């Protein structure tokens, strides 16, 4: 995607990236059934930076799992780039994740005793990219998150903020259609958190990477262009964030 095409342009030519239509998710059966989502409609366009908020148990994690193709909805439809994704098989979902999605987790989830470079290379390995190209792209990605010179360090030798940067580098190395971040600053102090958020905002602006981020903190949500609030398995509010930019 052209980096110059951002902000206003995307609004004008808005193409839906993700569309949830009346999606519900029920865990368990009968009396023990627990409705995590009760008819969620959500449309996210290319280039958006959406913050998803809500108390624990409000359904935001379930929604993220469905968006990330880690889980399937019980009812309703999920269109990813206009393609129905709710009935994909396990392997098809794996392939969709491989080619279109990037994940950033609260706990970083890097491979231990494995260098930063190798961690970032990992998704490219599954794409079957030759080693030379793989390493070059992984280096570039690490450079983009400001970790040039830290390639050979293992997670144990990096600070929390640095580990999260490695995780972001790993998520963006494949140039995904959307970056799904689950409380990316949950384990970091406020200074480190702001750095990470600046980085995500820069990626959204400069590289037009769409981002959907779950967070508890308003300070962090403020970086997004749109804030969606969940409550009891439904979307409570969905508003553009005027403070951003």
């Amino acid at each position, binding site marked *: 995607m052209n980096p110059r095409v951002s902000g206003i342009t995307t609004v004008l030519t808005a193409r839906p990236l993700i569309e949830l239509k009346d999606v519900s998710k029920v865990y368990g059966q009968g009396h023990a059934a627990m409705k995590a989502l009760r008819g969620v409609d959500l449309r996210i366009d290319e280039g958006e930076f959406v913050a998803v908020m809500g108390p624990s148990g409000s359904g935001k994690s379930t929604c993220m799992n469905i968006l990330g193709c*880690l889980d399937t909805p019980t009812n309703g439809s999920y269109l990813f780039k206009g393609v129905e994704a709710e009935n994909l098989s*396990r*392997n098809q979902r*794996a392939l969709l994740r491989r080619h279109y999605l990037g994940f950033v987790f609260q706990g970083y*989830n*890097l*491979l*231990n005793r494995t260098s930063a470079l190798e961690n970032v290379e*990992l998704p490219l390995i599954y*794409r079957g990219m030759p080693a030379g190209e793989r390493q070059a792209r992984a280096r570039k990605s690490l450079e983009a998150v400001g970790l040039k010179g830290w390639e050979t360090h293992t997670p144990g030798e990096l600070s929390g903020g640095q580990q999260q940067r490695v995780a972001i580098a790993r998520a963006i190395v494949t140039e995904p259609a959307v970056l799904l971040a689950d409380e990316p600053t949950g384990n970091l102090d406020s200074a480190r958190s702001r750095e990470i958020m600046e980085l995500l905002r820069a990626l959204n602006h400069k590289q037009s990477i769409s981002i959907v981020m779950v967070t508890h903190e308003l300070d962090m949500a403020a970086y997004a262009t749109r804030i969606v609030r969940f409550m009891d398995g439904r979307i409570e509010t969905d508003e553009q964030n005027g403070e951003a930019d």
Partner: protein
Amino acid sequence: MLWNAFLLALREVRRNVMRSFLTILGIVIGVAAVITMVTLGNGATAKVTEQISSLGTNLLELRPGQGHRGPGGTRSTADMFEIDDVQAIDREISGLAAVAPVAGQSSQVIYGNKNWSTTVTGSSNAYLKVRNWTLDIGREFTEGELRSGKAVCILGNTVRKELFSGQDPLDVTIRLEKLSCKVIGVFKSKGQSSFGMDQDDFVLVPLRMLQRRIAGNTDVSAISISARDGISTQKIEQDIERLMRERRRILPGKDDDFHVRNMEELVSILTGTTKVLTGLLGAVAAVSLLVGGIGIMNIMLVSVTERTREIGIRMAIGAMEREVLMQFLVEAVVLSSFGGLFGIALALAASVWLAAILQVPFIFNPGIVGVAFLFSAAVGVIFGFFPAQKAARLDPIDALRYE
């Protein structure tokens, strides 16, 4: 993908060198045990076969029977053969390479101030052929010598050593008891037989000479027969039995008063025994391979649990079920193959060393090495599959949450 899985597995093995070593120890010992047992067993079989075949492989020996015990415990010895029997066999049975009459008598041989107690065997030139003897020096008997029973002899190597100790024995006259006898040749040494007898301790003379001048009868105590290559000794054995029953006028239903010993049978019985033993030892050793496989499964299961989160990460990133399966399967196979390689190295060292101690030849058998290696890899596949499947079936959400 497979190559990547292989590299990944190597890294995993390197990451836990000690644990990997302990994991494969069972396989190492199993493979080493199988190969060592089979190699030593093959060596023992080869040794037995070699010793027996130095007697002549397609050899049949016809001997008179012990006859039957009479009512009072008296024992009638069956009649000896005559030279006519030898000629009849030679004439009427097809597929023979050579037929040699054998008669023997123990005797003192004397030369100068040395004397030696040995066996004097009377036969013809066919004896050399049948029993695989070759001449070291000198010549065979001539037709004339055989027909007239001339006093000439060919010495076994032991007799030559005892009487001549380095001197040239050709054309020297020695004495058999009171009889002067000219040495015309010496046999090449064959050494000890598998039964521990010195095969070189004899003197060969023309049958006629032994019968007339030493034994004083016309008996032939045994007939040695060798079959032509490719002719079944069993068939010849049957033919000879039929012919001899006829010649000795044994009524149908009565037992033979002679027997035919078939060397091939003896070889197959003896090598059969060692082969069965080899197989048995190999099978016992193979059980330890199985135990080694279970060890691998154990560690792989622990490893899958330990790396649940890693599996979750890989799945989130886009690893398909079969790719996770392949990763753990390849890891198990790499581990067990390493075990196989170490086992082979250990087995070769142990086999060479033990073969020297047990005095059997070391026979490198690439077949069993290959089979043992493939087997160890197969153990990896079989016992690695269950843990790998467990890993592949993990739910990525649960796996990512796993602490």
